[in-house]
């Protein structure tokens, strides 16, 4: 319990800094933000009204506290385009992005887990070199280009999957699955490369430890040693990588959503950038950063939960 409280407390200054950085984003606008938002041709009255709306006439520190108070009350403001609540916009777009992120992560795991284990179990063999090559290719091919190639092959040439668009799961589960296959494969392949390397090196390290040698000496089968004894410990550092990856995916599906025209969170940010809807951009960036901080906390706690050495060590120290 103490570990949990300490970890959450340590995130507070980070969250405060994140909020300050996001708040100051609007101040980076060259010139008067109200004029930049409305355009040079706006009347002085309109500019003044916008300044009032954004609270720009108040001192900076007051502006920050006004803004953060609203944010903490769950009010992210209104879109500058049509006055829609940003909360509503984000809530509408999040499900598609969460589905894509989880789907991509699943694909990454499905590729990385067998390849990583095989590589580590048979180091310096053809299988290992092949997996390393796949991993190197995965890290090098831009996922948006892979997505385009997938569209050409599976949507244009073979016509088996849709080229773009998104059908919500609760509208039509089968069509939903079809609409997310290409984006999750294109993104998941890239992520699998990093995960594969992590699993390989972690497994290699575990396979050289004394308890594995003992297990082999007892005459246990290779499968039992690999899956029953080594994998559990090898997966501990992989949890961190997976957490960071998942957090990154939630904010990093911007381009995937753009290629496949999926109305997700990333697409919302891109559209808002082009519409100069700074309030929506500001709020969306804040939410994605807060997500990352909380996922990191969750990963740290999970890490302590699955590894008694960390948990007991920390409790012992505290």
């Amino acid at each position: 319990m103490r570990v949990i409280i300490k970890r959450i407390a340590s995130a507070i200054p980070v969250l405060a800094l994140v909020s300050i950085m996001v708040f100051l984003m609007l101040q980076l606008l060259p010139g008067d933000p109200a004029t930049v938002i409305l355009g040079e041709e706006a009347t002085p009255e309109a500019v003044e009204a916008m300044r009032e709306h954004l609270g720009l006439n108040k001192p900076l520190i007051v502006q920050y506290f006004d803004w953060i108070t609203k944010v903490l009350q769950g009010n992210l403001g209104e879109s500058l385009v049509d006055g829609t609540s940003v909360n509503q916009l984000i809530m509408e777009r999040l499900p598609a992005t969460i589905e894509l992120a989880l789907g991509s992560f699943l694909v990454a795991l499905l590729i990385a887990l067998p390849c990583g284990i095989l590589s580590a179990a048979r180091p310096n063999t053809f299988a290992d070199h092949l997996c390393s090559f796949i991993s190197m290719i995965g890290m090098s091919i831009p996922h948006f280009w892979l997505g385009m190639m997938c569209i050409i092959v599976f949507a244009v040439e073979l016509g088996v999957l849709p080229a773009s668009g998104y059908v919500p799961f609760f509208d039509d589960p089968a069509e939903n699955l079809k609409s997310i296959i290409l984006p999750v494969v294109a993104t998941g392949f890239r992520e699998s490369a990093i995960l594969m390397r992590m699993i390989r090196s972690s497994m290699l390290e575990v396979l050289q430890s004394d308890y594995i040698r003992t297990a082999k000496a007892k005459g246990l089968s290779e499968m039992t040693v690999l899956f029953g004894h080594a994998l559990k410990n090898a997966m501990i550092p992989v949890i961190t990588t997976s957490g960071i990856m998942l957090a990154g995916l939630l904010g990093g599906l911007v381009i995937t959503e753009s290629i496949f025209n999926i109305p997700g969170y990333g697409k919302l940010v891109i559209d808002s950038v082009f519409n100069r809807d700074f309030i929506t951009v500001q709020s969306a960036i804040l939410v994605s950063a807060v997500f990352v901080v909380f996922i990191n906390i969750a990963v740290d706690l999970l890490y302590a939960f699955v590894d008694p050495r960390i948990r007991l060590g920390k409790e012992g120290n505290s």
Partner: protein
Amino acid sequence: MNRKSQSVYALAFHRFMRNKQAVLGAVIILGLVFVAVFAPFLTHYDPIFDQDYNAVLASPSSAHIFGTDDLGRDTFARLVYGARLTTAAAVLPVAFAFFVGVPIGLYSGYKGGFIDQWIITRLVDALQAFPSLMLALALAAVLGGGFLNAMLAIGIGFLPAFIRITRGQVIALKNQEYILAARSIGCSNLRIALVHILPNVMPTLLVQITLAMATAIISEAGLSYIGVGASPEQPSWGSLLRTAQSYLVTQPWVAAFPGLAISLVVLGFNMMGDGLRRALDPKIKQ
């Protein structure tokens, strides 16, 4: 010190040269630089102004070996000249992150205390909370799009890694005997940081630089693809892909060549980075 570090680098160079994959990576990167420098000698088309309206979206032929784009511009010429932007995309953000991040990391790690623990570390933590692409988009929103702003945005995204790596290495090194010896003979902190610590942090940074360059190229291409990086007329490989998106069904080769070029160059940086890591840290398990 100098002779020792030379021998360390000489050994690493030998190990690097024995790694075929790493050498291939270096050759690909040299190829990129060669194409970027000698672009005018490799094609007689101008990548922006030579527009052949009779050959719009032409398929590969002897006149245009990689075909043409939607304005009849030669794709090969745009790829060749695009190597310049790609080289800049690899160098500029990483140079920014290096020259800003490394001094901060050196100071933070060496001095420690309140500024390190409560200011720099927290700022790095906060900066790391922003997904890099989101950060780039946010900066594009406030500063406007464009190649240089994209470079700055990508560079800011790299800062936490450079600060953290340098800081971590400095903390590991600063209480070593040779540093204590340097301090005892009256070396200034600046001299210790630059002459005695930095050269020992460089091997790790070198690997980070190479791998960050690979990421920078993909990020620049991504930002140009979504329209907040290089402008559409600039022959960035990402801009080429943006154009290609509209013609995926009818002219798929328009997307093929820029994507292959990006993949090849990024592969080169990744292979070289891997090779450098293995060469500079022989303890890594093969």
